[in-house]
């Protein structure tokens, strides 16, 4: 009996060269499949269809977004939900995705499952998103709207006035002025810049 255990131990502790190779190959293949699958699943959750798969998004924010310029415009270039609400680079994306798991819990418990509940929660949800954008200097806006390449001669005089002063100096960021451009606004009482 003792000998048998010793033999097994010996076989395990001194693996053959081929064994090492097989383990490595399997590990590599497994890693590729896992990593590929993980990223595929992640990018599947980063689509407009996925976002409006829940009626909370489809019936409220998506309906409102459909009237705005980020949904339909002359050239057909669009910014869909994840373009604004999920960071592009990997680290920030994962952080946002983990934070978003709270939204799954919200969906399961039905925190905004009626229009009334949604409207009631709109301000706290909007303020959270405004804070996120303010804190990261409107990073998701800037993925497309790059200040370096803004042609002031093509902008309206009102835009030039603001962009060449407050935005250029970094005193303000996109979201400070451009709130409610893709969704309706909550009660704006007490929000800076609003009446």
């Amino acid at each position: 009996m003792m000998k048998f255990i010793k033999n097994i131990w010996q076989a395990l502790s001194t693996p053959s060269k081929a064994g090492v190779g097989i383990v490595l190959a399997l590990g590599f293949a497994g890693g590729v499949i896992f990593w590929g699958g993980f990223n595929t699943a992640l990018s599947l959750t980063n689509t407009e269809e996925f976002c409006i798969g829940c009626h909370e998004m489809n019936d409220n924010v998506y309906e409102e977004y459909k009237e705005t310029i980020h949904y339909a415009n002359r050239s057909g270039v669009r910014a869909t939900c994840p373009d604004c609400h999920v960071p592009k680079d990997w680290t920030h994306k994962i952080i946002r995705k983990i934070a978003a798991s709270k939204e799954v819990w919200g969906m399961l418990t039905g925190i905004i499952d009626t229009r009334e509940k949604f409207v009631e929660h709109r301000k706290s949800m909007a303020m959270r998103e405004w804070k996120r954008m303010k804190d990261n200097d409107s990073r998701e806006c800037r993925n497309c709207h790059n200040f370096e390449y803004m042609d002031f001669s093509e902008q309206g005089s009102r835009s030039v006035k603001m962009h060449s002063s407050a935005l250029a100096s970094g005193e303000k960021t996109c979201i400070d002025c451009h709130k409610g451009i893709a969704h309706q606004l909550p009660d704006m009482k007490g929000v800076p810049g609003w009446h």
Partner: protein
Amino acid sequence: MKKLITALMLLSMTAGVMALPDDVKANNGGVESLRGSAELDVTRRADPHKRVLKDRAPIERNYVHQPPVVPHQIRGYRVDLNSNKCLSCHGWKYARETGATKISPTHFETRDGMTLSDVSPRRYFCLQCHVPQVDGRPLIENQFKAVDSLTQQ
């Protein structure tokens, strides 16, 4: 017999109407509108959308007490119970910073002349009086001129 006559009369009347040529049935009697004439059985092609003028200098008024028109685009600017985008620039708090025209003090008055500390509810909905302009031409030529006192030299 009576029934038969009624039936015959009805039949002849319907047949008479049906036998009318199409152009008589759809005749609009020669009525023309400023936007041209259209027969009743024809759907006139809609005019192309007119473009709202992009940022311009304030547009002169044509008569005393005319609400000034909006010389810029206002797409997506909501004015409702929750927010009023116009006041984010034209409100007294922000007008200096943004360079926009301040709303007049009359907007703080109730209809019986009492001055409130904020915009009066009856003057809150800006677009009831102040409207943006498109690049349209007048449908008929006219020689209207603003009163002399409002014309800038």
